């Protein structure tokens, strides 16, 4: 058993993840002025990680911001209304509440595909946005501030700020990547791309596509909740814009840019996006979305598998779906 796992771990994806996290961790520890930026990228990467799982299954959720906001508001409410500051408790609550919400919504959403899935997830997150915007107890449109979380239950708990908080984000990201990498190799994980390819075939193999999509959606929801909780700590402030559809769009952007080949992929996209944004704010505040949009078009056109489909490990799979390819040929004629 253990040898099987260790042989499975010696793949390009593992090396990529190890190298990536060493670089990210090194950069964050050595360059304190980059810590905030990298922390934000890690939180968004965790959200995009869940979205990547959905994209592997052929589903684009334009509503991951719903769980992102729910996770963040769990932290805010836990702190402000219940005086809870314990890091692990807050992270666990955020993940559990998001997962529970995703589980309930999943009964509805697992029936939908393509555009209808995207639209319904978008509608649900906009309902959440409207609720948060109108709820005075939750801070209305201004939102509210979030304090630093603490670790340890002694009389003087440890306040997590700066480098400590960065380390929390890094560890959370590593754990998530490991978990998702293992999931992607498990039977339900392998069913994702199969459903994308041909759902009927999956059903004939004797398993339920709907149940698998439901499971994937719950995992993606929990990850987005975790990302939202971490983001609340990073920024120290939460507001309804976390649930707005453009926030979801950003996560979709990260996932598409990165590709879905490896569990680590989304962090490459998230990091690039944050660096690009930081540069853009300084040099080109009004044109950076043009650059982003153009990059996204180029990726979709030339690298359908995302950035991580570039020359890592075996070349073959990623874009080659015989069914869609023949369709393209006839339709483009």
């Amino acid at each position, binding site marked *: 058993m253990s040898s099987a796992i260790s042989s499975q771990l010696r793949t390009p994806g593992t090396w990529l993840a190890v190298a990536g996290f060493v670089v990210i961790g090194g950069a964050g520890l050595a360059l304190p002025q980059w810590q905030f930026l990298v922390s934000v990228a890690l939180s968004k990467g965790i959200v995009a990680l869940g979205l990547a799982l959905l994209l592997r299954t*052929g*589903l*684009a959720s334009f509503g991951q911001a719903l769980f992102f906001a729910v996770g963040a508001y769990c932290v805010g409410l836990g702190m402000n209304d219940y005086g809870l500051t314990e890091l692990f408790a807050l992270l666990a609550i955020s993940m559990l509440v998001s997962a529970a919400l995703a589980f309930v919504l999943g009964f*509805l959403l697992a*029936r*939908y595909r*393509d*555009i*209808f899935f*995207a*639209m*319904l997830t*978008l*509608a*649900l997150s*906009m*309902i959440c*946005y*409207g*609720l948060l*915007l*109108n709820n005075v107890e939750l801070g209305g449109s201004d939102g509210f501030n979030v304090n630093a979380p603490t670790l340890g239950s002694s009389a003087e708990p440890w306040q997590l700020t700066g480098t400590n908080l960065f380390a929390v984000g890094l560890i959370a990201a590593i754990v998530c990547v490991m978990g998702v990498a293992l999931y992607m190799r498990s039977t339900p994980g392998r069913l994702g791309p199969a459903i994308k390819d041909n759902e009927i075939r999956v059903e004939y193999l004797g398993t339920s596509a709907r149940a698998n999509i439901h499971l994937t959606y719950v995992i993606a929801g929990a990850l987005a909740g975790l990302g939202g909780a971490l983001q609340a700590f990073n920024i120290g402030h939460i507001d309804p814009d976390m649930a707005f*559809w*453009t926030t979801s*769009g950003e996560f*979709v*952007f990260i996932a*598409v840019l990165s590709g879905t080949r490896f569990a680590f992929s989304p962090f490459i996209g998230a990091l690039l996006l944050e660096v690009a944004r930081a540069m853009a704010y300084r040099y080109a505040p*009004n*044109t*950076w*979305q*043009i650059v*982003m*949009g*153009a990059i*996204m*078009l180029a990726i*979709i*056109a030339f690298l*359908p598998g995302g950035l991580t489909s570039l020359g890592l490990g075996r070349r073959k799979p990623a874009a080659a779906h015989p069914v*869609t390819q023949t*369709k*393209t*040929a*006839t*339709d*483009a*004629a």
Partner: protein
Amino acid sequence: MSQIYAVLVDGVMYAAWLFLVALGLTLVYGVLKILNMAHGSLYALGAYAGVTLIGPWVAQGGNLYVSYLLLVLAAIVAGGAIGFIMERGILKRFYGQDPVVLLLVTYALFLIMEDAIKLVWGVDPYTVSEPYSFLGNFDLGDLSYPNYNFLIVGVALVAGIGLTAFLKFTRSGRLLRAVIHDREVSQAMGIRVSRYFVVTFMAGAVLAAIGGALTAPTVSVAPGMGVEIVVLTFAVVVIGGLGSLPGAAFGALLVGLVRASAVHYWPQGELFSIYIVMALVLAVRPKGIFAPLEARKI
């Protein structure tokens, strides 16, 4: 009692405006099977083009009746040109791929358009309200409405009826319906499908731009106006059934009335009542209320 009238009139006016913008979105989906996220940007583009043309015209004391024509003219030119560039330059290359891929392509176009508009027009708001106040008000009982809103209702009716008549009675309209029904067979029958695609996309873009141009005098035209309307028009066309003209009309009316009722009876619910309706409709009828039947291909 007057509150019910107020809800009805407000609802219908809002619905007409929504319908005008959503019409192009559902038309483009019906023909090209693309859910265009950049539709809101085309709407904003129309608004900017409109104020750019009538701003100096109004400032020089030009005839205000002509300003309405200028608004529409600006929208047709701007929407048509950018629609042509988008379809021929970019969308054309992605036909036949997954609907989700095309959704992402239009999302990228949306990002590009948002900044392109800021580059051309800057980030300061533009306000040209003369055409709005010029038409005066209309008294309905003890309520007073700007006549300009009736103008938008009129334009929406003309656009809706015109498009329906075009599809039903003209030769090109019938051919277009054939393309909608079955792209491949139409092509085999000698219909120039790609030409219908580009013209339809341009028409959709022009409709969005006209919606924006006619809205321009009633608001201050500023960055972000396209972001707000994207999801709103999505709600309308998804409720009605993507690609269905009567569906878009029904969806707009439903959203308009729900929003107007919310404004009058439950102000906090204004924003999300619309999405609750959308989620409820989708939960019961996954493809919307008037979803066109699709022939099963084997």
